[in-house]
């Protein structure tokens, strides 16, 4: 087996991964550095982000305001030291991206323009019309090409982390095009593989978001933090789950039930005004808006369509000129995918799984408890997002904590000696596992797609917007059975060349592990906070649960849940007040 060696290896080539890699190259150009990704970096899911990225820029804004919005938006589960570092470093990261060429939208005099966003009290969301994720990713990718020290392993799928003597020492991967299995011994590994929306059946997330990095870390002994917190975005297109950006509401769009009524006024989110009001109504936080949808549905005030219940997002009153200038992608997506023009017609929308607040437990520098292993972006949980992330904080998080993880990993790598040869034995074990249990496996009767569908249905039934202990308990059993059935998988493709059935099987296996961690964490948290709403425990319980859950994988494979206190610096837990 080929074994390569790198000082720093970044797994994942999206916003966080590329930012981390550039930070490594700039911090210490002498380090050998590589980015390994299962797709070409510009295919990464950062590309789909639309609305913008938050950072204080206006004179009337302040770091404390951004911090408070983030902490109250997260229902006080954010670590406040992390949030303070985040809001302070955010503007420089945004400017850095500007210096690298990101085509930010501008004011007439050439300065950066900002827009309002849900749960934010001041306009601080930088944007590039409604395609900021796309522009951020391509700016980072194209900029990364100028660093000759940065080597890439494109379309290489990481299957396992190598751990020896309590330290992460590299990875085993498959080059998808050829099926070649190889190892990279690395002094530090940074995981930046994104979230796991595909654990659910209805999601804005691309096909590639299968929780790979979360499962890799979990299997290697690092805990997953706050996995019960799953964000439903309130405005997805039925059937496809395509995201209609929150910017549609920040520009002044309304949410209307089947009677044409702006129903959010019934859910403690303020009074309807013709113009958008910050931290009010349609500019409330995502968790509250998605919960309000379910209540409306229960009252029979939603529409029923072939793909479930829906309500309307109305942006007609914004006018064609504004829509084309600030929301062109919304118009393009509506025309192309639901055959309607939002200039003239209302958009059918329903809540859709969008983002994982939880992820691999890291400290404020992106370090996980496993020495040598770092994580940043959606795969990680620092935590700045707490129980509910505010829109436009995640792209900024990719940059701020991507850069932090890169710098920290570069520092750690520079202090290490050559890596331990014990990992080579592990690497050949992994090669044997991949070949025997998957590539050359000819028996078995379970189809990947059937198991995946059952897993997704199970997750939606138990871990959706509202949850109960009984449903979660049932789901834990069902997932365990799916894990058993996974061993009886039938693979039809035994080719070494671009075998997507093999990668599909590996992804399913990652998702089953991550799904179990989500369910176990949700079952253990007997309170309601942010996006985690337990109808059998409807109150927030700061006495018992002002704490992060940590899911550890036990030797038997099942998760064990532990807790870690939340770091409170200056904002003691209070009530989340919107619309006032």
């Amino acid at each position: 087996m080929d074994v390569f060696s790198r000082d720093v290896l970044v797994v994942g080539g999206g916003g966080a991964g590329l930012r981390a890699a550039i930070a490594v190259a700039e911090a210490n150009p002498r380090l050998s550095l590589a980015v390994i990704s299962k797709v070409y970096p510009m295919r990464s899911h950062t590309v789909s982000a639309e609305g913008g990225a938050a950072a204080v820029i206006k004179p009337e804004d302040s770091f404390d305001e951004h911090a408070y919005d983030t902490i109250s938006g997260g229902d006080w589960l954010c670590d406040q030291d992390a949030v303070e570092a985040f809001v302070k470093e955010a503007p420089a990261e945004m400017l850095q991206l500007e210096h690298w060429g990101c085509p930010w939208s501008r004011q007439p005099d050439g300065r950066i323009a900002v827009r309002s966003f849900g749960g934010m009290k001041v306009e601080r969301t930088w944007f590039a019309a409604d395609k900021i994720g796309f522009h951020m990713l391509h700016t980072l990718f194209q900029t990364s090409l100028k660093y000759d020290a940065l080597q890439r392993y494109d379309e290489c799928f990481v299957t396992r982390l190598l751990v020896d003597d309590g330290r992460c020492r590299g990875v085993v991967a498959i080059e998808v095009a050829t099926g070649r299995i190889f190892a990279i011994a690395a002094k530090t590994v940074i995981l930046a593989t994104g979230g796991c929306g595909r654990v659910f059946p209805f999601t804005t997330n691309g096909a590639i978001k299968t929780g790979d990095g979360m499962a890799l870390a979990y299997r290697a002994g690092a805990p997953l933090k706050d996995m019960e917190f799953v964000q439903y975005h309130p405005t997805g297109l039925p059937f496809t789950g395509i995201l209609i950006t929150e910017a549609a509401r920040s520009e002044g769009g309304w949410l209307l039930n089947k009677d044409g009524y702006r129903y959010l006024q019934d859910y403690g989110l303020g009074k309807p005004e013709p113009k958008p009001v910050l931290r009010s109504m349609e500019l409330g936080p995502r968790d509250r808006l998605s919960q309000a949808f379910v209540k409306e549905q229960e009252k029979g005030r939603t529409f029923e369509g072939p793909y479930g219940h829906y309500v309307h997002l109305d942006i007609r009153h914004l006018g064609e000129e504004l829509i084309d200038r600030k929301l062109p992608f919304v118009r393009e997506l509506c025309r192309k995918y639901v055959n309607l023009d939002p200039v003239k017609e209302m958009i059918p929308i329903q809540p859709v799984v969008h983002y994982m607040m939880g992820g691999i437990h890291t400290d404020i520098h992106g370090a996980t408890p496993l020495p040598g292993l770092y994580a940043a972006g959606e795969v990680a949980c620092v935590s700045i997002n707490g129980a509910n992330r505010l829109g436009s904080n995640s792209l900024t998080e990719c940059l701020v904590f991507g850069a932090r993880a890169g710098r920290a990993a570069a520092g750690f790598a520079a202090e290490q000696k050559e890596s331990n040869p014990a990992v080579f034995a592990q690497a050949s074990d992994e090669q044997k596992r991949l070949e025997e249990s998957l590539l050359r496996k000819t028996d078995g009767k379970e189809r990947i797609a059937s198991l995946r569908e059952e897993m997704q249905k199970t997750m939606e039934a138990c871990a959706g917007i509202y949850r109960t202990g009984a449903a979660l308990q049932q789901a834990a059993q069902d997932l365990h059975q799916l894990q058993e059935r996974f061993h009886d998988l039938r693979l039809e493709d035994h080719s070494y060349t671009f075998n997507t059935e093999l990668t599909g099987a590996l992804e399913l296996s990652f998702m089953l592990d991550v799904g179990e961690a989500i369910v176990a964490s949700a079952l253990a948290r007997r309170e309601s906070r942010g996006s985690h709403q337990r109808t059998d425990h409807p109150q927030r319980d700061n006495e018992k649960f002002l704490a992060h859950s940590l899911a550890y994988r036990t030797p038997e494979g099942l998760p064990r849940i532990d807790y870690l206190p939340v770091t409170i610096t200056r904002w003691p837990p209070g009530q989340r007040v919107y619309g006032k």
Partner: protein
Amino acid sequence: MGSREKLPPTVTLAVTRYRPEEESEPTLQTYEAPYRKDWVVLDALNYIKDKVDGSLSFRWSCRMGVCGSCGMMVNGEPKLTCAAFLSDYLPGPIRVEPLQFFPIVRDLVVDMTDFLHKLKKVKPWVVREEERPLSEGEYRQTPEQLDIYKQFSMCINCMLCYAACPIYGLEPGFVGPAAIALAQRYNLDSRDIGAQERLDILSGKDGIWECTFVGECTKVCPKNVDPAGAIQQYKLTGAAHWFKSVLLPWGRK
């Protein structure tokens, strides 16, 4: 489409199969998939992969026309299959093949490493004499200055323009529409001074002069980038540079 119109229950897809370990050349294999009004070609391919034949290989991810993964030839035209509705190809059969002019890796998957080399060669990053410290804030850029290059910044690297370009089909060395459009994206950015550094590759033997302005690249672009326009535009500036450097070698470029 009227609701009374009778819709076919299924649609036939003729899909390229090629496994280099087993076959010496690509063949077409026929599959049936359910017909649904709101299904795209990619949905049908996923149906086939999930329910019928797990060994079919293709790339896809976002399913909203922005990641650029799922470009294929649909009935002979380069398309993003996530935006190619089955209803536009009735009654079928629908021919789905890998993007032409690229080496086939397997089934519907092509090798696009050539593009990645070319992309790097055009230096698609901001070139400046001196970096301004972040503490001095942003480089001012008016909406009008942004508009000059914005369109060329919308390229998603989906490779449809290369599959549409007859020149690329004949001369694989040609830098090609997307890479030239992206070079021009930076050349036209008020924050960049790298046009001179990009001149050699763009005006060289595999650069813009290869293009005979067929314009197919612009027609197939799913993001309304106008690579043909970028090339025409560059020919004007490139010609000026060439004139100055060859005929007036003592002059300032």
